[in-house]
């Protein structure tokens, strides 16, 4: 056997073995990640309280806050989140017993359509996919999968000569034996997902490195010094003055006229500004944060976007957006969902092919390599 051929075969063995011992775990992570991409949309289908369609004049945030607080006695709204044209506004409330609650408020009628306590389905799937709900051990277990993922991509490209043919001549022999069919599917799906696997593995590696540096005490920093109000800027009153959220939102909108509104955070303490977040459209991956004095409704600073962000912050935001596909609305999410399914299929088909073929091939190759190395190095290897 020629050296080149046996080298290809070694690459091939690497490709076959990289993910096999952990295939079920990788499969689980791929599948939960795929579901996590569209978890909001799934809940939108399941929970009628989250839906709000039809036109009309949107209510000011003060009316939404009043409605939410009336529906959850004792609750204090800490944030409002606008999901999109067909979504109810979600109001997050701090409750007297220390828990938090979400109220779904119709943005036009102001009707509270539902109240849900505890963690959401979305954060559940994120925790399940991202850290197996065991932080930080699970975070490392999951992000370490980036290494076999990169390995599988690289070795796959080396092994599958002329892979680009799958772009213009995809061939899946559906009627052949299952082994042939799964093999074809694995090659075609793999070729079409090259970009996606690259994106997912690079962003996962980033999550791994980021957490490692953090735990080694070498946090990347880049976080800004929080904006706080000075004590003399805070009014003196008998009881806490209610921030004029409508004026806050109006000044934020005046500062960024083409902003698509996403969040309004009320001050977390008396010294915090109110924050309005949205995407201004020019840089779709990077949201803008407008910090507003809650008492005077003056804009203090606009953070985010291209100009204000440090390199690390920029990387963090972009990596997260690329990993989750949450940067261009539903169309992008659906692309990420489809390729997530494809990647999950790749793991599964790889396992099937392995079970049907690679075990035997490995025994042969190991035998050949041993024999070959003995022939090549034998005499000099004294």
């Amino acid at each position, binding site marked *: 056997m020629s050296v080149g051929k046996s080298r290809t075969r070694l690459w091939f063995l690497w490709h076959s073995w990289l993910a096999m011992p952990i295939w079920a775990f990788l499969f689980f992570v791929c599948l939960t990640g795929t579901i996590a991409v569209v978890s909001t949309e799934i809940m939108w289908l399941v929970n009628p309280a989250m839906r709000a369609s039809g036109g009309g004049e949107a209510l000011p945030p003060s009316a939404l806050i009043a409605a939410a607080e009336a529906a959850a006695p004792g609750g204090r709204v800490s944030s409002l989140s606008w999901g999109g044209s067909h979504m109810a506004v979600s109001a997050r409330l701090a409750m007297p017993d220390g828990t938090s609650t979400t109220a779904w408020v119709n943005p036009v009628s102001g009707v509270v359509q539902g109240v849900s306590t505890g963690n959401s389905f979305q954060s559940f799937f994120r925790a399940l996919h991202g850290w197996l709900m065991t932080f930080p051990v699970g975070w490392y277990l999951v992000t370490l999968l980036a290494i076999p993922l990169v390995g599988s991509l690289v070795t796959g490209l080396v092994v599958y000569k002329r892979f680009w043919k799958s772009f213009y001549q995809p061939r899946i022999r559906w009627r052949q034996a299952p082994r042939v069919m799964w093999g074809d599917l694995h090659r075609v799906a793999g070729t079409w997902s090259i970009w996606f696997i690259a994106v997912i593995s690079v962003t996962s590696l980033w999550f791994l490195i980021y957490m490692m540096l953090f735990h080694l005490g070498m*946090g990347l920093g880049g976080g800004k010094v929080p904006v706080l109000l000075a004590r003399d800027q805070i009014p003196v*009153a008998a009881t806490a003055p209610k921030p004029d959220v409508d004026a806050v939102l109006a000044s934020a909108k005046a500062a960024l006229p083409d902003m698509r509104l996403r969040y309004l955070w009320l001050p977390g303490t008396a010294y915090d500004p109110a924050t309005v977040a949205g995407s201004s459209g020019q840089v779709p991956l990077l949201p803008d944060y407008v910090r507003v004095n809650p008492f005077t409704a003056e804009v203090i600073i606009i953070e985010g976007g291209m100009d204000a962000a440090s390199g690390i912050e920029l990387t963090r935001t972009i990596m997260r957006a690329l990993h989750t596909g949450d940067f261009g609305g539903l169309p992008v999410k659906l692309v990420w969902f489809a390729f997530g399914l494809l990647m999950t299929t790749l793991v599964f088909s790889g396992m099937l092919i392995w079970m049907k073929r690679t075990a035997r091939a490995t025994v042969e190759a190991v035998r050949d390599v041993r024999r070959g190395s003995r022939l090549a190095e034998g005499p000099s290897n004294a």
Partner: protein
Amino acid sequence: MRNDSMRRLWQRGKFHLSALMMLVPLPFLPGYFSPKPIFVPPEVRRDVAVGPFSVTLATYDEAPGRMPTGERMKEYRIHIRPADIDHVRGVFLRVGKPRSLRTAGALAFGNPYEREADVTVPDELAGTEELWVTMEDWSGGVHQASLPLGEIFGGKR
């Protein structure tokens, strides 16, 4: 014979063992969806009168954690009576008496009924330290109280 089939089962099954990773999140499932944690670590609680306000300090009965920056941090929760939440402008916690309002310590944030504060704890404790609570009301009044840190520290020292 039986040994043989066991071995075959192992040969076929060993590569699916990573499926066991799916068991890892299972113990956390019930707690995740309940609004209050099910397995609450034991708490240390103390009632403190700070001027006109009576608050309850609470912390887990655990030693302080170490931040990546090397600091020792202890998390405290400050329960405020519902009738008071609109009168309290700020709650600050500090180990040792603050020299002025500017150095009052960690500002408590979050849920107005149950604010939380991350307090820096010195590496070496003599045992005589005090935890100082500084509360500001909206009319500008400042109220202070202290209690021995040992009473509300938790964990083994």
